[in-house]
């Protein structure tokens, strides 16, 4: 069932000024419930503009968007319902924490979406636990004095607490150290099974995209140029032309195949490569 429908979407910044710039040009796609979609593209390709449309942060100029049965080209779409349905975790969300305590910060969302106080609190507690923080230890602390990784988790809990159906993550691992990155991606993977059905992740990290998502949308110069699986995208295209990097594992497999190996063009993780090479080796030893 499609829960996001984007048709002929166009958007121009600074229309009728000397700074006029087209950010989105005739974008079409739909996303079904349960998908984990990556959105990639170089800086300025329109990714952020696109995801901001999905929960009505940018007013539609031309084209059509329907999200969770809310039609954004209506005269007065129900934006509150839309924003509760689509949880957004922006880039560097730790800079958006503001309340005196972690609990208050996480309760802000649900309270604003009209949950009563008890319900909001219960939901906040759940969300804090869900992101892997120790609720009792952290609830009364100021979010501003936590570590970077913890802050980002609190921000994530603040979004989860109002129980969105779709989660949009704008570069969720940017600026984190390798440990923080891995923890964040593991968290996202576990959310995908539990809290939210559909996840859209904007990322510059192709290694991450290839490992975690099941579908990739590629924007380039304001246009949607690919909408396919990671394996197809990375194995069947020369991405350097559009300023994206091929994931390391794919580069290794492509080079090995040029040198006479015959490895599967579905390999996207180190583990898959190691397993495949083991099979090849076992085969040649027989």
């Amino acid at each position, binding site marked *: 069932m499609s829960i996001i429908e984007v048709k002929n979407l166009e958007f121009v910044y600074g229309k009728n000024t000397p700074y006029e710039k087209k950010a989105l040009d005739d974008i079409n796609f739909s996303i079904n419930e349960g998908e984990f979609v990556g959105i990639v593209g170089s800086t300025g390709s329109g990714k952020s503009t696109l995801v901001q449309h999905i929960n009505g942060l940018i007013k539609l100029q031309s084209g059509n968007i329907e999200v969770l049965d809310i039609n954004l080209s209506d005269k007065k779409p129900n934006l509150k319902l839309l924003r509760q349905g689509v949880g957004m975790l922006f880039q560097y969300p730790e800079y958006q924490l503001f309340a005196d305590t972690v609990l208050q910060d996480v309760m802000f969302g649900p309270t604003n979406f009209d949950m009563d106080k008890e319900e909001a609190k219960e939901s906040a507690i759940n969300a804090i636990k869900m992101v892997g923080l120790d609720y009792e230890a952290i609830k009364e602390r100021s979010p501003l004095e936590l570590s970077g990784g913890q802050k980002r988790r609190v921000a994530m809990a603040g979004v989860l607490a109002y129980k969105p159906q779709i989660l949009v993550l704008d570069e969720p691992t940017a*600026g984190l150290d390798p440990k923080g990155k891995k923890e964040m991606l593991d968290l996202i993977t576990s959310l995908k099974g539990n809290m939210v059905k559909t996840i859209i992740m904007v990322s510059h990290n192709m290694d991450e995209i290839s490992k975690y998502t099941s579908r990739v949308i590629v924007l380039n110069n304001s246009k949607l140029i690919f909408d396919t699986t990671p394996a197809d995208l990375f194995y069947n295209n020369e991405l350097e032309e559009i300023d994206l*990097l091929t994931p390391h594992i794919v580069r290794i497999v492509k080079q090995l195949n040029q040198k006479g190996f015959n490895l599967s063009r579905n390999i996207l993780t180190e583990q898959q490569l190691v397993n495949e090479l083991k099979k090849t080796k076992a085969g040649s030893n027989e």
Partner: protein
Amino acid sequence: MEKEIIIKVENVDFAYRTNEGKTDALCDVSLDIKKGEFVVLLGHNGSGKSTLAKLLNGFLTPDSGKITVLGMDTTDESHIYDIRSKVGLVFQNPDNQLVASIIEDDIAFGPENLGVPREEIIRRVAWALDVVNMSSYRKHTPFKLSGGQKQRIAIAGILAMLPEVLVLDESTAMLDPKGRGEVLDTIKKLNKEKGVTVILITHYMDEAIDADKVVVLDKGKILTCGTPKEIFSDVETIFSTQLELPVATKTSYDLRLAGFDIPLVLTDEELVEALCQ
């Protein structure tokens, strides 16, 4: 020939002090940076990397121990302008580093403050913008640029002061692969062609592969220091600090565990070559 030491860090301790007490950030750190070296600092958040970076140009001063830049002590107030013009610091978030509303003014800010003559400033602004590939934006405002573009402007602003040492504190963290590649190429070019000493703090292991020296910080101490090959061959230490191995290194390590007779490698190309033997 032994290269000249440009920055000498000797037994440095540093702690942050707040109302609630003090937090140790660096403990007995000693390090020599040689002229023209490309040094990468690794370590996870809270390991003391950024603190060390800020100590190198006198932004912070050691609680005990001593840091000298070209022989000048960073605690010596009379040399602080010299030190800051020799050691340029680029931070992670470009929004915190831009000062003017027009890009060329922003880049001119540093040299203006150093008293560089106008004609020379104009030349340096043009040169710095060219190095970071942003010349066409000269008259634009930096605030409408993307994050990656802003970071290149921030770097250009530092370059315009013609520093001898460039310290980049996760300066590519907010950039896309293309922006990252461009900034890294720029840094490498400055290092190789102009002899600028580079100290790069990063979470991307890829960026450490070409370094002359890699320094791993953990809990405020230097855990290990060596060539990339030496550092990444010590897999146990890398795992214990919860850092990553480069993808090719990790794959070669796993393959060795699986009984493959190949060496530990650093790059994709080396891995392919090893497997084709």
